[in-house]
């Protein structure tokens, strides 16, 4: 009888095929831009687009961190209050140092922000992994804690940044490089680094494996505790970076800073194509998701159709439709 054929040989054919599933959020984004233009041509004006995208940077940066957490099988509801808390700490530190260090207190404050973010992330991570508490609850708890701390630190009012630092710090939000606003550059850089980490490093693999199937990951010698804790730490660092960009925008931390950001962040991640139950994360999708959310809000203001009372309803409808576009683009 004849020799068995070797179908296995086919090898690497379709490596470069276009992945429609990943394109979903970008298609939704495109659809939104077109609709926006039809509704109000100003929508596509460079100033408007640049404003909107710059604004979406905070959520995008935080959501990039959330992509790690969610991909690894966790969830973090505390990001909004964490951002407020870190902003508060940073401003207080900078103000304290300003007399002695001058504008050097700004980079020092940034360092403190990063440290605080990493510490907060570590706390979340440890409660979730070592304490084995459902992430939703654990981070709901720390959300209350961070929010209370910023309220306490500010006596319920505002913590404004020292006047002497304002002008020096302003460019971090309002500055541009080659015409591109700095927050956009920072968020692209964060996303680029994150996608390198998630797609090109050992840690990224471990993250996706832990989220896809905890047992398989464990049996492959991956420490779930470590992997997931690191994801929370990355989340903390991203929140810190967002906080650093945030400070110059309004120059103050208040107890309402970052309220409900967590919902926007999670929405951005999910619209971006990452499943909430964990597994593969989609960094660029997440960034697109964050921009989509901000564009929707912008569109609501620029269009004249909607009564102010119904804005939230229309936003809800658009988000659902964006998800449907995604579904059908698969």
């Amino acid at each position, binding site marked *: *009888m*004849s*020799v*068995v*054929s070797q*179908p*296995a040989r*086919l*090898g*690497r*054919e*379709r*490596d470069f095929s276009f992945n429609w599933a990943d394109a979903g959020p970008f298609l939704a984004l495109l659809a939104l831009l077109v609709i926006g233009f039809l509704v109000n041509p100003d929508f596509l004006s460079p100033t408007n687009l640049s404003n909107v995208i710059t604004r979406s940077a905070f959520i995008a940066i935080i959501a990039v961190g959330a992509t790690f957490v969610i991909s690894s099988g966790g969830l973090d509801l505390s990001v909004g209050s964490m951002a407020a808390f870190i902003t508060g700490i940073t401003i207080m530190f900078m103000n304290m140092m300003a007399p002695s260090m001058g504008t050097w207190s700004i980079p020092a404050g940034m360092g403190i922000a990063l440290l605080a973010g990493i510490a907060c992330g570590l706390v979340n991570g440890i409660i979730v992994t070592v304490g084995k508490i459902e992430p939703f609850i654990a981070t709901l708890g720390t959300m209350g804690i961070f929010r209370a701390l910023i309220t306490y630190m500010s006596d319920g009012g505002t913590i404004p940044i020292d006047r002497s630092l304002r002008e020096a710090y302003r460019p971090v939000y309002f500055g541009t490089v080659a015409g591109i606003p700095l927050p956009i550059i920072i968020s692209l850089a964060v996303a680029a680094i994150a996608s*390198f980490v998630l797609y*090109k*490093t*050992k840690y990224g*693999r*471990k993250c*996706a*494996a832990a989220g*896809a*199937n905890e*047992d*398989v*990951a*464990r*049996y*492959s*010698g*991956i*420490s779930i505790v470590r992997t997931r804790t690191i994801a929370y730490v990355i989340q903390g660092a991203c929140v810190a970076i967002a906080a650093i960009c945030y400070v110059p925008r309004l120059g103050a931390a208040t107890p309402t800073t970052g309220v409900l950001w967590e919902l926007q962040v999670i929405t951005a991640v999910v619209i971006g194509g990452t499943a909430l139950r964990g*597994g593969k994360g989609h960094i660029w999708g997440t960034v697109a998701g964050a921009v989509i959310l901000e564009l929707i809000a912008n569109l609501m203001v620029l269009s004249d159709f909607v009564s102010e009372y119904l804005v939230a309803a229309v936003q809800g409808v658009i988000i659902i439709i964006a998800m449907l576009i995604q579904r059908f683009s698969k």
Partner: protein
Amino acid sequence: MNQAHTATAHDLDMERTLQRDDSVKAGTCLVRTENLSKQYGSVTVLSNISIDINAGEIHAIIGENGAGKSTLMRLISGYINPSVGGLVVDGQPVTFTTPHQAQDAGIVLVHQEILLAEGLTVAENLFLGRELTRNGIVDDRAMRRIASEKLAELGCNISPNMLVRDVALADRQLVQIARALLDDYKLVIFDEPTAVLTGDEVERLLDIVLRLKARNMGVLYISHRLDEVQRLADKVTVLRDGKMIGTYPGRSLSQMDMAELMVGRELSALYPPKTEARARDAMLRVTSATVPGYVDDVSFTAHKGEILGFAGMIGAGRTELFEGIVGLRPGHATVELNGAPLNIRSQREAIDAGIGYLTEDRKAKGLLLQERLAPNLTLSALGRFNPGLYLRKRRESAALEDAVDQYDIRVRSLRLNAGQLSGGNQQKLLLAKILLTNPSVVIIDEPTRGIDIANKAQIYTFIRKLVGEGKACIVISSEMQELIGLCDRILVMRQGRINGEVFGEQMTESNIALLATAEADSGRASEGGRA
């Protein structure tokens, strides 16, 4: 009172189900497949399969891993839809779009891969979607009792209240089988039902299959254990690369014939020759291993160049013993590798120390089914592909191509997800994955579960080659023949302890079976002295 009465009535009902002499006469055609073909994308997995499945007949389907057996079964039972062709059931052409429709038409499939809801109890799983009710209230008591009975019939005496999550793999398989036997079906399809079972359960299952036949039901039976096929089958259909080679009367084929029909070439001996016994260096020495609830004070030594077998019945605690040793379960053991003490607290540390453990549960614990092949392959050995900052995808692809070659993994594209491989090929991928970590002691739990005969030979040769390179290999298997053919020495476990050791001439099925079932009468046998 009322309750007891109804329950009894229900019992009678169940009995009737099983003993009913259906109006179907032996030999009438229950299901005919007409030119069934299945394509995934541009790949044809099955083409032009036409077979008749008759009442009162056991029809075996054999073929190499990836030949398309499971695909065919899923087509017949409504899990997937054919690209071309169709089914004729009771003379009527039908299309099933859900397994439930097939079940309503009397066709049920016992999956190769276990499909149970882990978070629910055994009884709940058994009756899922067809709960018994009394006055609209689910009758848990009756369901539990019937579940116990059905499982006992299969030789499985786990409590129906256990969560499936806590049930051993073999028992899960029995639960799946029990599920298919619970109702009044015309055609029962078994896709490698015995792959995870040990001797006793296999016998009981074969018995039940024969009883189904006696009741004029149709049976489709897939197995890589050709002895079973030979014992059971009235007809044998051979598939190769998705094509039908032919249907043959069962008794006319010897096991060798079957194997050659499947493979399409002549086969060499199944087991590689054993290397001669000589004084060997101790490699892995385990003392007083204890895994609370499962394993109690087990000590043994594996030597360089040795294949050490672990035999035992289901629940003997072999899996737990090794999961305990490699740090996957809480427990304690004193472990020495090449004379140096190890303190292993996690699988990572075991891998780093050079101890590789390959799980028996490839679907739930071995592979990321939704993930591509290459990331699966390299998951335990990422360090090797990460020389500097980042992972080298090119090296990973190269490793995959190597593994596909070396382990003869039959894939039609390297861009499939692991879940899209056939069962046997998943197993080979898993083996490749663990060997990629380059362990010096390889522990393989059920190495050839679901692997066809030609590939078994390959894997055995491979294992032999590994120990030839100076590694030690520990094989846990429920197939006694495999252990006897492959191993240099076999330890037999019973109820969490080592009940004895056999080697050389003593390695016979009856000796092992005795040690696996009976209490060793002169104190606990241990290998201590001989090690």
